[in-house]
């Protein structure tokens, strides 16, 4: 299954005091074993542009469409056998310690 892994900051100040894993190592290992198909960090939300078409007219808004304090700071596209494997990948990411990670399965036909 493919999982979109959304890497987010967390408004809760409850970061794990334990040593978080190294991101470079995380990426290199998952790229090597085929679990990570692609991924990137995002530019800050101030660089976001929201696009809508209403009554045929293009409407652009600066900033992200969701006004939340949590910010998606990056993504990784995973290829995993199942949720357990995807959770193992996510728990090894440094942002699981300092923020939160959402796993969204892709609908594959």
């Amino acid at each position, binding site marked *: 299954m493919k999982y979109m892994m959304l890497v987010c900051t967390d408004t809760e100040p409850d970061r794990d005091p334990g040593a978080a894993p190294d991101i470079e190592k995380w990426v290199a290992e998952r790229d090597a074993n085929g679990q990570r198909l692609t991924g990137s960090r995002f530019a800050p939300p101030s660089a976001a542009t929201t696009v809508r078409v209403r009554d045929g007219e293009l409407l652009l808004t600066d900033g992200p469409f969701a006004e939340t304090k949590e910010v998606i700071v990056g993504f990784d596209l995973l290829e995993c056998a*199942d*949720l357990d494997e995807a959770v193992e990948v996510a728990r090894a990411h440094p942002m699981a310690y300092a923020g939160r990670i959402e*796993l969204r399965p892709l609908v594959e036909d």
Partner: protein
Amino acid sequence: MTDAAGAVAEAGAEAYPRIVAALIRVTGDWTLAEDCAQEALAAALERWPRTGVPDNPGGWLMTAARNRAVDVLRRATVERRKLRDLALLTDPAPAPPEGDVVDDRLRLIFTCCHPALALEARVALTLRTVAGVPTADIARAFLVTESTMTRRLTRAKARIAAAGVPYRVPTGPALVERLPGVLAVLYLLFTRGYDADGEPAFAAEAIRLARLLHTLLPDQPEAAGLLALFLLHHSRRAARRDPSGDLLTLDQQDRARWDRAAIAEGVALLERAGDGPYALQARIAAAHATAPTAADTDWPAIAGCYDALARLQPTPVVGLNRAVAHGYAHGPAAGLALLVEVRAGGALDGYPPAVAAEAELAARLGDPVRAAALFRAAADEVRSDPERRALLRRAAELSP
């Protein structure tokens, strides 16, 4: 109940999870698996009174359920491979798992108890799919409508498929990490949900599942501890209430009505149960269960178990029970000292059992006035009438 109906119930209790688990593994379709297992039970109820109970009732049920699944899938013209795998599904009672061969029922339990599902959904799904409890009965015990419970179960099953929850038993460190969650679901299943008489609704199912889990994972001490705890608690079921339905404390219960076979099984399990939280609670229950009279209770042993439990689970309620145990084991002054310590945090303020415990200790320390006042204070806080009556009776005994 006729003999045939009894045979269906007995064979069904044993075979149901095996049938559902095997059909899910082969077809991947939870609803199909449950429907076919139910239909096999219905067919047996209809057939066996006429034809007699077959030599291998579990095998008969598995075959009937498999044939039903083949019919349904054939009509839906699914892939050949599933049909072929189904056709091979004949062994009604496979040999106990050895090495890497995992029992289907264990797969089913770990999937129903997966932490990616909401806790309530895990409990309901385990009752429905592993224990085969009808949805209407689950709904009644959890005080929701049947359609609400049906929706909850449907959502849980849909989520298993959509989120990619695997149909697998974790191994190695992952098993150690996941097992406590499975045990917690069984514990909730034992304690949550009530019958009309106020007793736990699914205690028998919880015991059956805990026994299954212990059989399948004999090397996991906490699985043995949980089963022992269930059996020892359940052994008092017939003695727990007076004729009017009021709860009786341990020292008021008629010990002749305790289930000796359940106690013996629970005590025997403790040899392999280790020192985890469930085992410690089971050891406490065993100390009560094996005392011929309340006065014979081995309170020092119970106090020792609470010391260990408080280290593993330093909650206020464990601290309260520990203080009470020490009060009996080492005198009321020792108990009161521990109680003052637990109450210092304020977490037990206004909690009637804590107030009643302090009252009992004050009475035994020779302060009936303070004790009576505390009993009355506790009575003000409790919600049930029988409990209030019992507390006020104690107060009246101390200061007539």
